[in-house]
Structure formats: structure tokens, C-alpha cells
């Protein structure tokens, strides 16, 4: 569906002169410095996948999305989406994709949502039946009815985002690009949008490329994540693999039926204890979760037990903070058997 090969983008940042004469001179000035926004990034996305495209501020996420949607011309490397080269075949590509930039609306600011939708119906030549059906479905899922006749400029952020996402899907695109679709939204609105994306992806096999700083989005939506930092790709694989890769340790919380005096278990370290409530830290390489639980059940009576996966927020922080650590972890990971790992570059 999407093929990206050694994609790079370098921005020339021009020095802008101000004022009458200055702006005239800007036409001729060639003074600039270079900013490498995306550096030899390669990945591919299959139909129906939801990809979390993650990275810290300024990593190059939006720049990548802009190249995938044909807005920006790459400096080097190649991109194809649906078999089209987005910047060369912008219009053909545009017919098959939907794009939402959370930071700004792509609807007509002064027009009511409904009229924006009708305009889109004409632009994409959406058959009347399909248009009606989609509006109905999206209204049911996102509740557009309350503000369908309100001009976009009067919408709240959450309403606007819902309208934008629905608008991007009216023409049944194959790929949906979402650049921070939950930015600035409250918990309820976020949950609603996530559910919607999930449902659309499941029902229509829409491929989704999602950038976000909200790691809940990632947890709920993405099986696979791509991390970029400093313009470079630093991880591409399943979220679970990333988790396993970066955090070898897990936490087991147990509520015992009574307060035992000696609760130590081999290969697990007690990190917290309050009466009958105990937490162990353990490494799955030293003892498997099943064995650990088995060992506990053999000796004690329990009320409740749960294993805590490492928090993805923590994980990604580790990646962001120090690329070297990641490189080391990757090196280690080659020794450790990671059967579930898909791709790591």
C-alpha cells in the first residue's frame, strides 16, 4: 500500500528580509541554511494496517506525512502510495487518500459543515447513495448532527476534529493519514475518535498512518509502530516487540489471602509490601510469568494477581532520550531470542 525508500527531505531555510525593499530582494536572495527534516527513512505499510508513526517534537513526522500526501516534494528517495508517486501524481493520489492535520482544519472555515461536505461530494465525485450512507454512518459514530449546520469557524476543537475526520473519509479512501488527530481533545472526545478509527479500519480495511504524542492512542490503535528521532528511523516493529525489547523487566502484583511472613520467591524481587499486598519485579528471561505464578500458587493463597506490562510511555521515553541506549538494546536483542519481532532497522 505504502512503500517508502530512503526518503529524505532537506529544508532550505531562507533568511527573510522584512519591509518593502527586503521582500523584493527576497525574490533574488539565496542565503540559506539547511535543515535535515527526514533522513533516509524506509518502511512499507500493508493494506489494512494501523501504523503509529511516533517521535519527539521536530522528529520529522509531519514532514513525512506531507511527502506521503504529495504536498511536499522529497529531496531524495522514493515514495509510492497505492502505486502512485504522490508529488508527481498528486491529484490521482489525492482521490484515494484521506488526510487530517489535527492542527488545522481542511474544511471551509466560513461554511457550515454540511456545505463543506457537499462540496467534497462534488470534488471527489461521490455517488449520492454512498455520500448519504457515509454521512449517516459517521453521524451515528461521531455524532455530527449537533453541529452539522454550524459554520466551521464556530465549532469547538472536538467538534471540528470529528467533522474533519468524517470529511476525510467521505470518499472511501484506501489510506487515511492522521497527523495528531487527538491533539487538545478531552478524554471522551479522544475515546470516541479512537473507537471510530478502529471501527473504520476494521470494517473498511482502511490503512491508517497515525502520528500522535498521545500514547494511549498508540496502545489502543496500533499493533505496529515506527519511531523516528532526529529525522532517522530508529524502530519499526510490533509494539509488543518494542516493549519486550526495551524492558526486560515486569511487575507482578499479588493480593494474598492473608499476611505471610516470608513471601520471597526465587528469581523475583520484592519491591513493595503492605500487609497482604505485594509487588515483585522479575525478568522474563530468568523466570517465565507462568512459572512465577505457579511458584506463588504452590505456597500461598491468593485473592488477586496481575502482571503489569511496562508502560509504553516509559518505553518511548527511553528511546527518545538516548539513541545509544536503543542501539545497545538492539544489539542485545540480537542475542536474546525475539521470535515476535518483525522488522528492526
Amino acid at each position, binding site marked *: 500500500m505504502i512503500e517508502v525508500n530512503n526518503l529524505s527531505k532537506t*529544508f532550505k531555510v531562507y533568511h*527573510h528580509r*522584512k*519591509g*518593502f*525593499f*527586503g*521582500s*523584493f530582494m*527576497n*525574490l533574488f536572495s539565496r542565503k540559506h541554511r539547511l535543515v535535515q527534516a527526514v533522513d533516509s527513512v524506509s518502511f512499507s505499510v500493508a493494506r489494512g494496517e494501523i501504523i503509529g508513526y511516533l517521535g519527539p517534537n521536530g522528529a520529522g513526522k*509531519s514532514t513525512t506525512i*506531507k511527502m506521503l*500526501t*504529495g*504536498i*511536499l*516534494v522529497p529531496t531524495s528517495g522514493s515514495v509510492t502510495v497505492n502505486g502512485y508517486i504522490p*508529488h508527481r501524481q*498528486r*491529484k*490521482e493520489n*489525492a*482521490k484515494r*487518500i484521506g*488526510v487530517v*492535520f489535527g*492542527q*488545522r*482544519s*481542511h474544511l*471551509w*472555515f*466560513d*461554511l457550515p459543515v454540511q*456545505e463543506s461536505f*457537499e*462540496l*467534497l461530494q*462534488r*470534488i*471527489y*465525485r461521490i455517488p449520492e447513495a454512498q455520500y448519504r450512507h457515509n454521512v449517516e454512518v459517521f453521524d451515528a459514530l461521531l455524532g455530527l448532527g449537533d453541529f452539522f449546520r454550524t*459554520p466551521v469557524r464556530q465549532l469547538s476543537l472536538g467538534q471540528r476534529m470529528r467533522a474533519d475526520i468524517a470529511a476525510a473519509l467521505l470518499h472511501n479512501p484506501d489510506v487515511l493519514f492522521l*497527523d495528531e488527530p487527538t491533539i487538545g481533545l478531552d478524554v471522551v472526545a479522544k475515546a470516541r475518535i479512537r473507537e471510530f478509527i478502529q471501527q473504520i479500519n476494521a470494517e473498511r480495511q482502511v490503512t491508517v498512518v497515525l502520528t500522535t504524542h498521545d500514547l494511549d492512542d498508540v496502545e489502543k490503535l496500533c499493533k505496529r509502530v515506527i519511531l523516528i528521532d532526529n529525522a532517522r528511523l530508529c524502530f519499526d516493529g510490533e509494539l509488543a516487540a518494542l516493549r519486550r525489547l526495551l524492558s526486560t523487566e515486569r511487575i507482578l502484583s499479588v493480593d494474598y489471602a492473608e499476611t505471610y511472613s516470608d513471601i520471597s520467591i526465587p528469581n523475583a524481587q520484592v519491591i513493595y509490601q503492605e500487609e497482604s499486598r505485594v509487588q515483585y519485579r522479575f525478568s522474563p528471561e530468568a523466570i517465565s510469568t507462568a512459572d512465577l505464578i505457579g511458584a506463588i500458587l504452590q505456597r500461598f493463597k491468593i485473592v488477586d494477581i496481575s502482571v503489569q506490562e511496562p508502560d509504553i510511555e516509559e518505553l518511548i521515553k527511553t528511546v527518545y532520550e538516548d539513541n545509544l541506549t536503543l542501539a545497545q538494546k538492539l544489539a542485545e536483542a540480537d542475542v536474546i531470542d525475539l521470535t515476535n519481532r518483525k522488522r528492526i532497522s
Partner: protein
Amino acid sequence: MRTLYLTFHVYLAFVTKSFQKRMQYRVANLAGLTTNFFFLLVHIFVYTAFYAARTGPLSLNLNEIITYFVLCQVFFMLMPFWGARSEVTSAIKDGSVALQLTKPVDFQAYWFSDECGRACYYLLMRGLPTFLISIIFFAVAIPTQPITVMAFAVSITLATFMSAAITITVFSFAFWTLDTTGFSGLSYSIITLFSGMLVPIALWPEWLAHIAAWLPFGGLIDIPFSIYLGKITGMDIWIAIGKQMIWVVFFLGLGRILLKRGFSRLVIQGG
């Protein structure tokens, strides 16, 4: 054929929406009427004084001059002058233009349609009231020949198209400069002067009028208004209209090249 119709349908929708969105601000627009009349009165006073002092015959009589400046104010907002800041430029500046590019539309045609919608709006909400009020208070000449009226309608439409094409061309430089005020300011001074907006070209010294004739900008004001006043007649009408057509095509072509190059080096601000 059907594709062509559907395409036209889309851009026609852009024209209507452009018109509609402006209708929401029609009350604010009324203030603009005052400005139109202010400038109209200034022109009329200056020329009345000028004509009173003048002894020799001029190529336009006072009545025609007044009509000329009434027309200037009626069509002022349709022309690529100071009032014609396009929101598309600010869209280029703040990067939201990018979002238009994610849609399967031709950007120049989209922008052109938007300008046409704008022109329709100002014709109806600004031009028409200005004209109606003016004919009550001033001796405005009204053409009697049907051919004149028809030729004028065609010519002013072409002038509007040319205006839109020029606006797109000038503002396309926003891709290079981001701040077009300096550049567009300079362009507009030239355009305003050579269109005949300030002083009708008929009153210019011959050598300067000659230069103006070779420039495209007379097509905005001088040609349509001269047709209206019956200064261009017969075969010359079609030559003048042909000239306008050539310049429309020229500016559309130039704008297209600039936009194409602009987009290929497009720097989208932020986000």
C-alpha cells in the same frame, strides 16, 4: 464530455461557495460603500475644478469623466487593487494551503473560482448599490446601443478574469517571499497607474498612452470603460476584446508556471 461537465460543476461550486461565505459578512461590507463614495467625490471635485480651469477641448467631456469614475468605483473591488488581498495568500503564508493540495483539485482553477465568486459578490453587494446611488446624484451616462451594452458586458467579464489571473500571478510570489506586501505593493502601483484607474488614459500625453497601449493593464479599466462610453466602436471593439483575451491567457499561463514551480519548492509553515 461528462467529465468536463462534472469538472465544471466542481469549480462552479467553488464560485458559489466563495460568494456564499462572503455573504455572511455583508453588513461589514456596507462600510466599504462609504469609502467608494469618498473616493468618487474626491475624483469628481478634482476633475470638475480641472475642467473649469481648462479652456481647450479634451477627449473626454466632464459628463464622461464623471461616468468613468463612477464605473471605477462600481468595479473597484473586482480589480486587483489594494482591496483585493486574497485569503489564499494568507493560506500560503500560514501553510493551510497545503490542505487544499490534499484534494484532487487543480489549485489555480480553485483559486480562480474563488476570485470569481469574490467578484460576483462585490459586483452585487458593492458595485450595484454604488451604481444605483450614483445615477441618482450624478449625471451618469447610460449606453443606449444594445451592441455597446453587450460588448461592455463581455469586456468587463474579461477584465474580471484578467484581474483574477493577475492576482494569482502576483500572489504566487508569496511562495518565494512569504511576505508579498512589498512586491505586491509595487505591482499594484504599476497596475493601478497603467490600467487608467487614477487618470483615464485618454487624457495622458501621447507617448505615455503609447506605452500603456502595449501593457496589459488597460484591459482592466481603460478598454471596458471606453467601450461603455462609446469611445471604442465597430471593429475596434473586437480588437480590444481580442487583446483582453490574449492577456487573460497570458496571465493564466504565467500564473500556472509560477504556481507549479512554487509548489515544487513549497515550504509549508509549521504543523
